[in-house]
């Protein structure tokens, strides 16, 4: 199937249509930071200003706080009400290639031995419309991790911004189905198609930073005991959880029960290996010193995850660099090993 196109000034009408059948999420600044929010019924100009969100798209599938079940003490023991996500379809419009890859990366974990119904239901019920980057951030380094900022096979439908129009390429059946329901769409010319391809190719040149991943597993392993190195790189870290919470692949969580006298709920929430309270509930956090916690985070992403699932758990989105209050830079930390 060839490329289709839609005029950007038609997006508002398109979003209006989507809103009837789906819950539509688009990048917005309405909360004072950029995140995917339910469409406000009006603005459709994010392609003009948006580079990436602060809160990563994982939040739409693995929310910061999620009620898993409720329980009530009855006559004969506890009654349990499971709270699985509803059936409705989420259309996420404008996800970046790095973030779409991030979802693929954590899909492996959430569908491993234990199939996480909360995450997987939302994933199955979502349609991802990707948007290629024309202007990456200075903190981006996705190209070092085999991600192309101008194309993506990890979405259902992929858009390239060619000026007044978005060019659309079907990636999956879900995407094709969505495209077939869109009005205001027309066939793209061969010229427009090559323009999109050219843009997708040339944007790679704009990503000038990189992370050195060559021989990484071996490098990580042989450096593990290098306490001086880890103490050095962690000296300025403030031990907060920003990097883990804005990371599109960090997925640690805590589960807690909140009890009243007769009823209560079980809640799952984001947790961070950077915080001293991490894993305190079952026993103790074995990583008392800051450098051990920091080493754990980098080793998880760049050694354990590749060992377990054959992929590095980093997409080069650069959020951890951008949001860190003391500018700890993953490229320096990994590059220095």
């Amino acid at each position, binding site marked *: 199937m060839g490329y289709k196109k839609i005029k950007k000034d038609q997006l508002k009408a398109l979003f209006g249509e989507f809103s009837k059948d789906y819950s539509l999420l688009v990048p917005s600044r309405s909360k004072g*930071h950029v995140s995917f929010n339910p469409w406000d019924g009006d603005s459709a100009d994010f392609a003009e200003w948006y580079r990436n969100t602060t809160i990563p798209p994982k939040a739409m599938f693995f929310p910061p706080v999620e009620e898993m079940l409720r329980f009530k003490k009855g006559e004969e023991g506890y009654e349990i009400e499971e709270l699985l996500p509803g059936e409705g379809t989420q259309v996420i419009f404008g996800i970046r290639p790095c973030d779409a890859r991030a979802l693929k990366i954590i899909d492996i974990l959430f569908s491993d031995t234990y199939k996480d119904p909360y995450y997987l239901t939302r994933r199955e019920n979502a349609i991802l419309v990707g948007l290629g980057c024309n202007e990456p951030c200075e903190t981006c380094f996705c190209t070092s991790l085999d991600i192309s900022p101008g194309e993506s096979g990890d979405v259902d439908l992929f858009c390239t911004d060619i000026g007044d129009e978005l060019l659309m390429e079907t990636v999956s059946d879900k995407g094709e189905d969505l495209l077939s329901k869109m009005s205001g769409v027309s066939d793209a010319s061969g010229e427009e198609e090559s323009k999109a391809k050219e843009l997708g190719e040339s944007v790679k040149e704009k990503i000038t930073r990189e992370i050195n991943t060559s021989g990484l597993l071996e490098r990580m392993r042989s450096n593990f005991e290098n306490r001086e190195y880890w103490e050095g790189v962690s*000296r300025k870290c*403030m031990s907060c959880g920003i990097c883990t919470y804005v990371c599109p692949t960090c997925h640690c969580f805590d589960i807690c029960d909140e009890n009243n006298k007769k009823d209560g709920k079980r809640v799952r929430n984001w947790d961070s290996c950077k915080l001293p*309270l991490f894993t305190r509930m079952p026993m103790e956090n074995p990583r008392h010193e800051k450098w051990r916690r920091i080493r754990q985070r980098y080793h998880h992403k760049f050694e354990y995850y590749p060992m377990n699932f054959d992929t590095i758990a980093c997409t080069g989105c650069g959020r951890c660099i951008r949001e860190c209050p*003391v500018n700890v830079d993953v490229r320096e930390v990994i590059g220095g090993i």
Partner: protein
Amino acid sequence: MENKLKEEAGKLLKEGKVDYIIGFGKGTVKFRTSPLITNKEEDLDNLVINPFIANNLSRYPIELKSRVGIVVKGCDSRSLTSLIQDNKLNREDLVILGVPCEGVVDIKKVADQSKAEIDQITDINREGDSLAVQVNGSSKTIPFRDVVFDKCYGCAHPTPLEYDILLGSEVPPSLETEKSLKGIKELEEMDASDRWKFWKEQFSKCIRCYGCRNVCPACFCERCFVDVNMPQWVSTYATWQDNLVFQLIRTLHVTGRCSDCGECERACPVGIPLRSLQRKMVEEIKDLFGYEVGIDKDSPPVFTHYEATDPEDFIK
């Protein structure tokens, strides 16, 4: 200033007067600096002093437990003094390298004033009272004082009050207090239900990353009350109610220790205007007890002693 700093820091390390130098280094991102903490002389060449030295470094010596040479701006020096008052730091272990500060640039304001996204700004240079900003190839001139952090407008002590070596000439106090209190006044003028709605919205965004707490030099508890889980005071998950409780308790805990350095707000990834809460308390203790944080290292912290003249109108 930068050259003098490198020279003085080098001497301190070479002569063995300190074990570490804590200063600002070049960041890996445009218009950012990054804390530089080192015991190696060769690293000192990376020290910088520029309009982007935003971090308050005064927390680091607590963790390092060593003799340190530390670079401070006016507000940071008051945090340091407050930590000395609380016996968290020994004055004898510190060599304070003071930077008289004309204000720190808030890059978000530069972007707003240039009507551009931060990523579109390619270069910023200080030229006297102005900043020359390059946006997508064209140049714009912005008055320097229009783009400093709000806290800088009301800065009564831009030159560090406590120092061993002053790296430049003194800077007069900033008298634009009203501008500094602007956001707070707006909140005060809201009626209670609107204000409640405002904070409810703000704390609904909080993801409980604890960035605000962990960058705060006044948050020096070895075990924060939110990290106590038996009994649990605040739930570990981020609901707006518990986020609000966490922040209000934190606000009260740091009252009398907060020098209005604004790091909590700068660190917040979701943009909650946290400084307004702290700043309000700074005003309150000034009004009630005539106390300003970090002015006199030999006086007791405001809440560790009492005066017979302290107001007690709250006892009805």
